[in-house]
């Protein structure tokens, strides 16, 4: 999507939410921009309205709202710049999450370029072209990089995508020497197996820039928004099974690990 504005070519993008005071999306006080559209369809996704790039109506007991609004990069940056000074004063900044920011890399890069005095955090699933990834990486101060499943077949089954571009972007990330955090959603019986956690630990141990691993225990409210979005939540794993929170594989390899 491209608009003419004041003689400059400007990209526009689709955002499904802008949340202020997100306390769990990085250091300090942050505002998180949720980009709409994601290349993965994780079976446990708790933001189903983030998957499609099209605007969607969300219906709940509190009423209806439209998820998905188009902004030009200048509009979005202007909105965010109203608060970047406050965010910086409070050790924080702007987090770009989703959905998946890489899906709208051109737009996100423009917004990042227009931000004034903001610490930028890129929260990504890592799936995207190397060029797009590099573009956003260059403009970010900290990266939250998701790793879900190391086994290619399992990854394809649960996210509907091949994981090799993710590993390749992880290498790019490490070469950049930018600080990053690996985030692992612990889905019972799927990603929380000792085997998968061991494989993740081996994959990331020793990578330059790696600050720590955050384990994110499965949230049983994952399915709660599907009905609002008019979608069906169909996990083929047992949601009620206790999550295996195993920090040992990381500790063994000297990787700092936290449970979020």
């Amino acid at each position, binding site marked *: 999507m491209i608009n003419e504005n004041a003689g400059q070519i400007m990209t526009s993008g689709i955002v499904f939410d*802008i*949340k*202020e*005071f997100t*306390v*769990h999306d990085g250091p*300090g*006080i942050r*505002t998180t921009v949720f980009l709409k559209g994601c290349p993965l369809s994780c079976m446990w996704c708790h933001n189903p309205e983030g998957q499609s790039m099209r605007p969607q109506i969300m219906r*709940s*007991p*509190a*009423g209806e*709202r439209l998820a998905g609004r188009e902004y030009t990069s200048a509009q979005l940056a202007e909105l965010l710049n*109203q*608060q970047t000074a*406050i965010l910086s*004063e*409070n*050790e*924080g900044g702007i987090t770009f999450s989703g959905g998946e920011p890489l899906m709208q890399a051109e737009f996100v890069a423009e917004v990042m370029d227009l931000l004034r005095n903001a610490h930028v955090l890129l929260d990504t699933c890592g799936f995207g072209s190397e060029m797009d990834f590099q573009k956003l990486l260059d403009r970010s101060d900290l990266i939250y990089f998701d790793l879900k499943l190391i086994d290619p077949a399992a990854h394809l089954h649960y996210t509907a995508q091949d994981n090799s571009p993710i590993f390749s972007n992880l290498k790019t990330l490490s070469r950049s020497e930018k600080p990053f955090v690996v985030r692992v959603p612990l889905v019972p019986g799927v990603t929380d197996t000792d085997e998968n956690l061991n494989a993740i630990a081996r994959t990331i141990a020793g990578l330059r820039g790696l600050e720590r691993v955050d384990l994110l225990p499965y949230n049983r409210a994952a399915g709660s928004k599907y009905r609002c979005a008019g979608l069906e939540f169909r996990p083929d794993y047992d949601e009620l099974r206790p999550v295996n929170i195993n920090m040992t594989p990381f500790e063994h390899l000297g990787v700092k690990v936290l449970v979020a």
Partner: protein
Amino acid sequence: MNERLELMKNRVRAGEHRSLRRSAPIDVLAECEAENLSWPRRVARLVRRQCEAEQVVIGAEEQIVFTRTLPAVPAIYSSEDWRRLTAGRTLHELGPVSNICADWSLLLSQGLLGRKQTAVDSRRRFSNDPSAVEFLDCAIEDIDAVLGLSARYAHQARVMGREDLAQVLENVPAHPARTFQEALQSLRLCHAVVWLGGNYHVGLGRFDQYMWPYLQADLATGRLTITQAEDLLAEFFISLNKDSDLYPGVQQGDNGQTLTLGGVTAGGDPAVNELTYMVLRVARELAMIDPKINLRLSAQTDLELLCLATELTRIGLGFPQYSNDDVVIPALVEHGYQLEDARDYVVAACWEFIIPGRGMEVVNIGAVSFPAAVDQAVREGLVGGDDFHKLLDRVKVHIREQVDHLAETYSHLLLPPAPYYSLFMQGCLEQGRDLSQGLKYNNFGIHGAGSSNAADALAAVQKFVFDERSISADALLSALDSNFAGGEPLRKILEEQGPKVGNNDPAADDLLVRLFDDLAEACEQRPRTGPGGILRPGTGSAMYYLWLAAGHERMREPVVGATADGRLQGKPFSANLAPSPGVCVRGPLSTLQSFAKINYHRIFNGGPITMELSDSVFRDSESIRKTAMLVRTFARLGCQQLQLNSLCLDTLLDAKAHPENHKNLIVRVWGWSGYFCELAPEYQDHIIARHLYEIN
């Protein structure tokens, strides 16, 4: 908290001490009539007889004593005489002086005998002034009565073999307190007697300032350890909860038993001390509704203190409420308060800034209904073919009419004498004047209620009717008249597409600022009030967010139907400073930015920005710290007052369905916290609705 205190707390919550209460009120009226006593003498007699009739109750493990056994305050006039006495006059709320704050340091540093000496000296000096003599006689009569009561407590302590306690009670409240325990005991008794005399919303003032010297000395000499001091403080706080059910208020919990912490000294230095922290720690441990805590802060306040304060918010107490010294003190000074007094301000029952011992201010004489003023202006303006500017002029006129009406009503204010309460005010004994005759500051306060709905309504009219011309004047008027019957699409446009306060959007915020400026102007142009004061405009709304919307028998203000912001008839208005109910705004930072725009140097009667944060925000120490930063941001942006609440929707819904499982669930209602299960259903629903929208 240790076992003894835990038990004590549970007993008070269970109300075991209520069985000790006498069932019928004592009779004071008969002797007042037989002796044909004057009004001041009747009030003094009332306090005296109440003290005399109090039964001594000393719990086996109590270190701070006094348990009220007289549940009622008896009449001192027959209803017929009362009518005659008050004919043509305005009474504030229930009548007796309420919602002011004593200078408790007068009691602690001088003792009642010290105060008595002052009274006796004045009596000699004013021997030719009958009204001064009468007032001083009344004061002395009540001092003697309280001394009699404390002597009976001391005697009983001796009989029980409680030497420690007897020694305390033999010294205070008669003499100056020597220790932290004596200071707490003296305050407990003398504060309770104010309630016993029928005055209410009895504030506790700058507790961490006037109590600190006693604690500091005890800690320095090793008389107390920190833990021992905390236990005494906890017991004092528990004792303040004993009589909550006897206090008059709109809902139980609305009792104005507030204290204020932090801020600066009279000289302008930081006033936070170890007791500031201790009060917050102990209140967090206790988790009871009294005392309600206000914390004064500035842009420079330590994050560590704000983190501890946030811990209280986390457990759902609904306090502390924050007031910003950077904004409050200059505004008070600008309006005639001496700098040293302004620096000594405390927060009244709900939000208003008052000076302990120096103010006989009536800080809430009523509310201006912004939605009513806007509604009238919109109707007249649209029918009359106004441009938007002219419509705004009409708003100003209607705001002024309401202010004038309230001010006229209160020009006939009648304040009953309060000789006992006067003991703890600056200058009363010295000048032989009852506090009801005025103190150093005698201002009135007015609040502007429903501000966000009103600003949103104006913003919608400006956008849709005047700028875009997408809604015709006729269509809007008939929709308002019919309460949007058959006009749901129109209502949705107004509700969802209009500019809203809370989004840092000038299209709505500028109108909010304008409403308050109109209010300020109307107040500033009033002649001085009866007792020589000014009108202080504020941003609170108390119960008016429900009353103005649905009507109430105790209300003088106009009721409003459906409004141009898409609000249906009968739906509540915004409470204090908060986005309109049901409006989903960008978030807490934008909301603070919106409300930071109000000209608080003119709007200085208090009234907090009210925000609910989901309890999931408070998961770990890191997010507690971030919430503390949010509080600091509130101060740095130049906002005036903030009330933060932590709420879990599921808990509230479950508490409504199964109150028996949630007897200790505390929520903030407007200027105060109460037990959720003890609130009337409409207040419960409003709190639930507030949260429902917050997470949307």
